């Protein structure tokens, strides 16, 4: 019946999957843990004792926790009410505003810090000086600095988690439950407190945990503002040559993040309310009174301005000649020379080329590995599957600094100082992102189409080529674009692993910043924002056209 015997190469699939997970994920993390308790080659907890008795280490830990908790609270206070407003009320410009609400996503972390802290609200920021000028103050205000600055930057970018999660939760919520509560005589407050919020609790907790994890892992903001936090402390210890301490700090930070991950997983598994009936969509209340409309319009414009100000500011700054803008409200001269320089001087375009090839190579590897891994793992149960799942989630759950230090230290004899290490770390870091995107695509696919293909006489390869790939590829590509964005704009991993020969854009932004070449730094930032916007737009298009073919 078989046409001719072909060698069975199926073992290559699990081999390639597990070799990446073992070498790229398990080994570096084990190395870190082992290295932290064998500082001089013999077992010793001395470095841990030192960590917990050094005031500066404890300060870093305390700052990390304080900043993260404050970030969660602030993000929730912005994101949740905003989601309710968008869900419940209808007003002019609602859809535009809703799209703009996610604008912070366009800013890579470092660019966000640059715009908010350096350009806008810092000690000589434009907004600070504008307020000084308008109110006739003696000095600029607010001169954002210290921990409040870090929390401000975090809240600006991380409120999006609460906004999106709450929005999705409200979307799923069955409005009939609210109508039922009201028909039973509950007041609006009571309906909110006893019916709506309890049903939203799971998404709110999910958003809080993710915000907390992101904030603990955040590097750019505390590093630039100069606040001692764990994620930055790791890098500084490493820079000072205190590798054992860097490893201990890495383990402590990793443990904190993993604890959050375990809680997140537990909540995902245990407390999801699903509505029982078909559900009724929430009617949106149009804002009727002219005064309220005016108020809504003004507030809306203010919110848009606030959200887009960092982007606008970076664009404006990119046209300012380095060093020409000092105390004026608006820049005195505009020039395009920052951009010309980026593309004419090798010194300046090398980082762009570096970022492009490293992000592209890492993403291509992510896509190929992700397809192989999902294809093989989706039909497995038992130990193999659980082991792989646990390893796959790690690079997402662990802070970027942790992933970077672990890989740098564990591969130090082999790869440190080579240009190959950085794209490899990008790859490992994005394994979960791409894997999950492809896995989601697979789970949207009706499993019986594969069987249909088989009954129609198609062999495995034919089925993969003609059925599985066309159905899974849109989601896989969209996920890969997200990975590309993350690698292209990355700062936290790059700063740990880069060498001069592969210095990426973010590192160049930092060094321009240090030389006070704000115009050049801004031009690079605009480039990053543009690429991210294009990639996101492309991903959205691929995903939506792909989705329409998934529903037969």
């Amino acid at each position, binding site marked *: *019946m078989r046409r001719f015997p072909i060698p069975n190469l199926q073992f290559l699939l699990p081999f390639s999957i597990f070799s990446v997970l073992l070498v790229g994920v398990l080994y570096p993390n084990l190395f870190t843990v082992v290295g932290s308790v064998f500082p001089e080659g013999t077992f010793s907890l001395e470095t841990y004792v030192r960590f917990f008795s050094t005031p500066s280490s404890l300060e870093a830990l305390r700052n990390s926790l304080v900043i993260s908790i404050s970030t969660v609270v602030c993000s929730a206070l912005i994101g949740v009410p905003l989601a309710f407003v968008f869900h419940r009320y209808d007003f002019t410009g609602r859809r535009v505003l809703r799209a703009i609400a996610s604008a912070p996503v366009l800013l890579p972390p470092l660019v966000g810090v640059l715009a908010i802290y350096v350009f806008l609200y810092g000690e000589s920021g434009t907004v600070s000086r504008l307020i000084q000028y308008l109110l006739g103050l003696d000095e600029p205000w607010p001169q954002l600095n210290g921990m409040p600055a870090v929390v401000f930057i975090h809240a600006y970018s991380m409120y999006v988690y609460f906004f999106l999660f709450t929005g999705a939760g409200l979307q799923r919520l069955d409005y009939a439950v609210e109508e039922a509560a009201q028909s039973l005589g509950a007041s609006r407050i009571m309906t909110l407190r006893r019916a709506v919020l309890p049903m939203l609790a799971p998404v709110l907790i999910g958003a809080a945990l993710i915000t907390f994890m992101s904030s603990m892992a955040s590097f750019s903001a505390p590093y630039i503002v100069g606040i001692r936090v764990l994620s930055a402390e790791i890098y500084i210890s490493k820079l000072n040559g205190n590798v054992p301490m860097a490893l201990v700090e890495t383990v402590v930070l990793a443990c904190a993040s993993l604890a959050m991950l375990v809680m997140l997983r537990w909540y995902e598994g245990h407390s999801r309310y699903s509505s029982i009936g078909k559900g009724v969509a929430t009617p949106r209340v149009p804002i009727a009174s002219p005064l309220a409309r005016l108020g809504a319009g003004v507030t809306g414009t203010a919110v848009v301005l606030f959200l887009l100000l960092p982007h606008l500011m970076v664009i404006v700054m990119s046209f300012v000649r380095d060093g020409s803008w000092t105390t004026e409200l608006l820049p005195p001269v505009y020039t395009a020379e920052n951009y010309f320089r980026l593309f004419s001087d090798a010194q300046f375009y090398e980082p762009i080329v570096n970022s492009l090839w490293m992000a592209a190579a890492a993403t291509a590897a992510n896509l190929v590995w992700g397809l192989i891994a999902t294809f093989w793992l989706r039909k497995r149960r038992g130990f193999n599957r659980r082991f792989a799942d646990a390893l796959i989630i790690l690079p997402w759950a662990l802070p970027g600094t942790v992933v970077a230090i672990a890989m740098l230290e564990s591969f130090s004899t082999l790869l440190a100082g080579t240009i190959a290490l950085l794209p490899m770390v990008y790859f490992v870091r994005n394994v979960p992102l791409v894997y999950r995107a492809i896995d989601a695509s697979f789970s949207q696919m*009706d499993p*019986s*189409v594969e*069987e*249909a*293909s*088989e*009954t*129609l*006489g*198609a*062999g495995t390869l*034919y089925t993969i080529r*003609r*059925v599985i790939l*066309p*159905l899974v590829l849109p989601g896989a590509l969209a996920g890969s674009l997200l990975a590309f964005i993350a690698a292209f704009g990355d700062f936290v991993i790059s700063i740990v692993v880069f060498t001069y020969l592969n210095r990426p854009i973010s590192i160049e932004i930092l060094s321009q910043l240090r030389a006070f070449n704000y115009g050049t730094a801004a031009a690079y930032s605009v480039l990053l924002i543009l690429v991210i916007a294009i990639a996101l737009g492309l991903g959205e298009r691929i995903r939506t056209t792909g989705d*329409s*073919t*998934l*529903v*037969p």
Partner: protein
Amino acid sequence: MDGVLGQLYPGRTVTHLALVHVNKNFDTTQAVNDLSLEVEQGEILCILGPSGCGKTTTLRMIAGLEAPSSGRILANGKDLTPIPARDRNIGLVFQNYALFPHLNVFENVAFGLRARRQTSADILKRVRRVLDRVRLAQYETRPVHALSGGQQQRVALARALAIEPEVLLLDEPLSNLDPSLREEMREQIRTVIDEFKVTTVFVTHDQQEALALANRVAIMSEGVCRQVGTPDEVYSRPTDPFVARFLGRANLLPARRIRARNGSDALEIAPDFQLPAAATDPESALVFIRPENVLLGAGGYSGRVIRTQFEGPIVQYTLQIDGAEVVAREFHHGRKPHEPGDELHIDIRQDQFHVLQDDEN
């Protein structure tokens, strides 16, 4: 003729598909238990049963998507069991159709032919022919998600028929359609199957669908085949209480065989409710009577109406005959239905009841 089949069904020569002592175990449950079935060339066999009875598993084993735990599946006397699904040439129409969402109507139907590396001229000809038969010729270039449920089903049917399958399998062919569409689709499926003269097995939980579409019906429950026969046989002469109940409303009245006062054998349901018995009837029996065979207005039994239920053209009465509850259904032909409390004469003709072994007593 295969040896095993010869032993099983001596004298039959047109058997096309046969299941021989097939078992299927999933972890702890036995989905199919010692199932033997034969389907003749060109026949439409329906496997009927409640959900979870093993009927879909049986279909998937015929298609090659599940392997039997033991037993064999034969086509034209050849053992299919070791052959993978892709080499069986058996067309399967999935319950949810499983159309390829990224391909248009034509490409969906052409899929199996392309997998067989046919020339494009052949493919064009055959796809056009099949689409024509299912009356979808003008929808060739449509994406499948732009079709209605009934049209999607016809694409699925065309796709399965395009490969000119040995056997056509249909999994719950009408269950995903609006009730208003079902009857129409039933006719169309019947027409298409007749035109292609293809041996067909379909599974359903809907007894009307089974009786209307099949040449023969196999009733399954809990993995076991209870009875196989023509629609009329299984409806009128069930061999099993489960079959009797599953194929529509049934009176199943416990009875004992006694020697009646006139000296002949009788089945006593109640002292004043006795039916004539045959010598072969068991001591402890279940008397099976379809409600439409309980004739009202004349006859030797007297009963009282307990409940009247009006169902449009038909009225259903719950009666008591000497304490035994009997359900009767009749067309009212515009007459005023009987009311609870009415006393009626009732007749049950000798050829319209059927005696089953009562296993429970």
